[in-house]
Every structure is written in structure tokens, then in C-alpha cells.
């Protein structure tokens, strides 16, 4: 079965949930905060998405902009989490 790349899944989530389905030219490196895409409730939703979809546990000290403030950063963070805990596989929807 072909797996959708993580970055595409993250982008699809962001576009669907924060941009209401309209891409609006959000780049992979664009800051969610600076673009006004995401607020604190949005961060809660993003964390829940990562935990539920990918089976990772986001620790409190990992709730930082370096990990969560763009599609590229979320993707890199997620990849490092999945590599660190290979038993946690991406969950099917």
C-alpha cells in the first residue's frame, strides 16, 4: 500500500483545519504564527493530530516553535519522533 508522505499529510491537515480547505499559498517553511494560521487552540489540535494519527507522544518540553511552527518543522519533528520510536507506526485512519 502506498503511504502518503508525512509532509503531505501535515499539509492536508493544516489546510483542512486552519485554512478551511483553501491552500492560500502557504509554503512549507512559512511560520504558522506569523501567518496567523494557528492559535493556541490550533496548537492543541495539531498536537492531538500528531498523537492520534502517528501514535507519537508529544512531551511538554517539545511544545516549541522549532518543532511545530511550519509544515517543514512539524514534518522534521515527526520524522525524528518516529525514528526514535520505530515501534510506533503510522496509524491507519
Amino acid at each position: 500500500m502506498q503511504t502518503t508522505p508525512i509532509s503531505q499529510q501535515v499539509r492536508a491537515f493544516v489546510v483542512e483545519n486552519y485554512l478551511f480547505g483553501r491552500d492560500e499559498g502557504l509554503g512549507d517553511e512559512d511560520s504558522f504564527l506569523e501567518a496567523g494560521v494557528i492559535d493556541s487552540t490550533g496548537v492543541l489540535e495539531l498536537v492531538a493530530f500528531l498523537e492520534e494519527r502517528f501514535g507519537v507522544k508529544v512531551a511538554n518540553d517539545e511544545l516549541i516553535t522549532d518543532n511545530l511552527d511550519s509544515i517543514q518543522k512539524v514534518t522534521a519533528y515527526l520524522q525524528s519522533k518516529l525514528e526514535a520510536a520505530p515501534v510506533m507506526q503510522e496509524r491507519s485512519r
Partner: protein
Amino acid sequence: MGAQAAVSADMLRIDPALETERIITGIRNAVFQQLRRKGAVIGVSGGIDSSTVAFLCARALGPERVQILFTPEADSSPDSLRLGRLVAESLKMRPAVEDITPILQGARCYERRDDAVRLVVPEYGPGCKFKIVLPNLLDPSQYSLFSVVVQLPGGETRKVRLTPAAYLGIVAATNFKQRARKMMEYHYADLLHFAVAGTPNLLEYDQGFFVKNGDGAADFKPIAHLYKSQVYQLAEYLGVPEEIRRRPPTTDTYSLEQSQEEFYFTVSLEKMDLCLYGKNHGISAADLAPAAGMEAEQVERMYGMIEAKRKVARYLHACLLVVP
């Protein structure tokens, strides 16, 4: 005069006598001329803001044209009602007391809220108390996300980060409280042909620390232009009882006592006041930092948070959209 030398907490000093005159003129104009009402209704919580508004309205309109209202509910601190009565006694007013618990029970406020808490703390139940809190963070790179703090009947506490469903469920349920209070204030306004006074200060008004159609609703807001520390200066001048002036601000919404810092501002109100002033007056983070007792990058973070909260508050301030 160098701008840098003037940056201190003194920037927030006001002339309370002058400000009082300005506000009471505004209240008279709003109530009698613009709104054409006979007086004002004020929901008094026993906190500094609503008490100060009650004192201002009494001066502006006369105590006989002010109806103060207490709306305790099951989770209210007994102190709120006691301090509210202190305001009424000081102003020689007869308050109305409306326990809104049955309204909230009818709306299943407590039940909905408890169901939401149990999404993250399944053992939450009778005898437990809780509040939701933000971490006290000034690390510019760290997100501050809400957690729930539950005190179990034995006294043990548990702190768990909220899921979106739990957070929104708790907020949506507890917002019934502010809306039920406002409904009751408008009942008295209709009954007496009075207007409803809103009690937010500038911090709350600017940053959206209110419930839409709840405590955010009012016919006029006489202290929404004042920073929190300026409300304290005014309160002292007006003779608001010292116990009220010394009481730490609280939301009085959750069964465990919750400070406003824990719920919304993440730093002390004094620091938040200065940061908001600095941002509003174009003072650089580096210049403001020593006055606020903070690092420049922390002030920068606060400036960013203020802007972010303003974006969220746009929905709260938005006028009705008639579409298309």
C-alpha cells in the same frame, strides 16, 4: 527628554481626580443622553473592576440610580458575595441577589463541563475540584497550552494537558456562567429601564478576556480604556474598600481558585500592563525590559502574544455581519 529615561512603571500613573471627572461625565452622557435610560445595572463580583465601576456609576448617576447585582453559583467563592456586600454597604445601596445555579443546572452547564473534564481525567467526579491553567512561560519559543488541574477528594492533585475536545468542552460549558449572569443583568435593566454597565479593563477588553455575549456584553464600558494598574489607582481614590483592592484577581469560574495569570495572561498583571502599554506606545522591547523586570526577548515574546491574542479577539469584538 529621552524616551528611554521615561520608561518605567510611572508611565501608568494617572491623575485619579481628573480621570474620575472625565469618566463620570462620560457615564452621564452615555446613560442619560445617548441611551436615554434612568440608571445603570452592574453585576458586582467583589473584584476590583466591577467594584470600581459601581463606585463610578454611583458618583455619576447617584446611588439611587444604580442597581448592583450579585449572581453567585455553585462554584463561586463565598468571598465574592461577601465583598460584593461590602461594596453595597459602602455605597449605601440595596443589592439584588440572584443565585444562577438553577439556570446553569437547567442548561446542564455542570454536567457538560464534568463530561469534558472526564475526557482527560476519567476519575473526575463528585467531591473533585478543578481549574484550567496555562504554564507561566516566558520562553519565546515555547507554546503555552492549557492543562486541567484536578484535586481529588483526598486532596491529591493531577495536572493533565487538555485535548482540543476537552478544552473546548470545558470552555463552552463554563461560558454559560457569564451568559446567565448577563441575562440576569438585562432582566434588571428591563425591569428598571436602566442600562447595563460593562466592567472590563483595557487588558481584558484589548486581549479578549471575556465571553462573547456574556461579560463582553454591555451598553457602556467606563473603564475599558484603563490599564489594570490604573483601575487600582482609581479604586483607591474612589474609596473602594481596601480588602477588595488587596484581593488577588480571580476568574471565579472554576471550583479550584484560578488566577487571571493562570487562565489568560501567563505573566503577572503588572508585567502584562507594562507590556501592553509598551506595545501600544511603540516602546522597544529592549527599552521596556528593565522597567518590567524582564529580559528583552521575553518582552518581545509578550509583544508577539499580545498581537496573537488580538487576532483571536477579533471574533469577540466583531459586529454582526449582515450577509450578503
